[in-house]
């Protein structure tokens, strides 16, 4: 029996559960250890009369990963038998690093990227972040650049182990 034929037998609630499971395994193309569920980018899935609608939210206004994520979502859901799923981008409420799961943060750290330090919120504009080196754990670190290889990251270096590292910015 084809995936699509199996799927048509499911109730909307069961289909939603299935879709969530599949969708939540899609990873961020720029940080492949993180799934969109880890990031909190996957906001909601609605199913009505067997039609799947997925809601995702961009981490940054110009995040180029969003198009890729939407495309990957379509592909995995179609492969799982869901016919023409629709992917919507929602802007409100704005994504925050607070939505990143603890599991996501620890995966980031293991991958060599320092997770967002503390909670997002109103930081003092010129205040300093305290960022711990994901390699050696020292907090004797310094910022090289406010902006890194992707919009969501800044470039830091560790003064203890002398390694440069990415820091996932707190927003």
């Amino acid at each position, binding site marked *: 029996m084809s995936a699509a034929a199996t799927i048509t037998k499911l109730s909307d609630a069961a289909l939603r559960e299935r879709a969530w499971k599949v969708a939540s395994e899609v990873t961020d193309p720029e940080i492949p250890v993180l799934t969109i569920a880890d990031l909190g980018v996957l906001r909601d899935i609605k199913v009505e009369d067997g039609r799947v609608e997925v809601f995702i939210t961009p981490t*940054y*206004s*110009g995040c180029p990963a969003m198009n890729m994520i939407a495309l990957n979502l379509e592909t995995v859901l179609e492969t799982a038998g869901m016919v023409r799923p629709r992917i919507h981008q929602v802007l409100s409420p704005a994504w925050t690093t607070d939505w990143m799961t603890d599991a996501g943060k620890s995966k980031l750290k293991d991958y060599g990227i320092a997770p967002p330090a503390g909670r997002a919120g109103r930081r003092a504009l010129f205040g300093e972040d305290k960022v711990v080196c994901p390699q050696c754990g020292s907090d004797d670190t310094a910022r090289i650049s406010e902006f890194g290889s992707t919009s969501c990251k800044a470039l830091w270096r560790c003064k203890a182990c002398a390694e440069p590292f990415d820091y996932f910015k707190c927003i």
Partner: protein
Amino acid sequence: MQPLFDYTLRLADNALVLGHRLSEWIGHAPVLEEELALGNMGLDLIGQARSLYAYAGEIEGKGRDEDALAYLRDAVSYRNILLVEQPNGDFAATMMRQLMYAAFAYPFTTALAKSKDATLAAVAAKAEKEMAYHVRHSAEWIIRLGDGTEESHARTQAAADELWPFVGEMFEVDGVERELIAAGIAADPVPLKAEWERTLTRVLDEATIARPRDGWMQTGGRAGRHTEHLGHLLADLQYLQRAHPGATW
């Protein structure tokens, strides 16, 4: 809906034009880290512009999408303030322009995030956090350059002096905005001036740069009267769509 369309277009044009200016540095930045930073800041702004253009197109309801609004309007139809279209100049001029704009955009987007218009509020809430980083980045450079060598100090001072006549336009309110401010849709820029002044004063003081004196302020960008620089910028930005209409890849 005309005022809301005009207003959204102004915000979008500011973001696109400044985003494009920053992207002009790609391949020319002084160091690799700065190349990434300028590219990232440009990306933030162009991302904001895309959301705003898409919304403006919806409001207008004539089938123009974000691409049509960005690529198929001439300079006289652009509604950005004159500050953002000023040429990059040297690195100090780029950073000064960025500081002047971001120090305004940060409190402005904070205020606009409370708009009764759900889309403007959503775009602003996202942009606010990005602009905080732009302020910090440009402020650090201005301090480093101003309080640096004789040469870097002189160039930073010159940038402040040359760009100062363009800051007044950020705090202007005209008929379009007055109506939308009263309706709780637009953010009133006037009360934000004090915070902008505080940020600029603090950074310029630390940079040992003299705050230029207020005098004649340039205006007209939001009415479509631009400096000669915008036409050149658009010639570059719009070239592909103009030469090959409808091109996609």
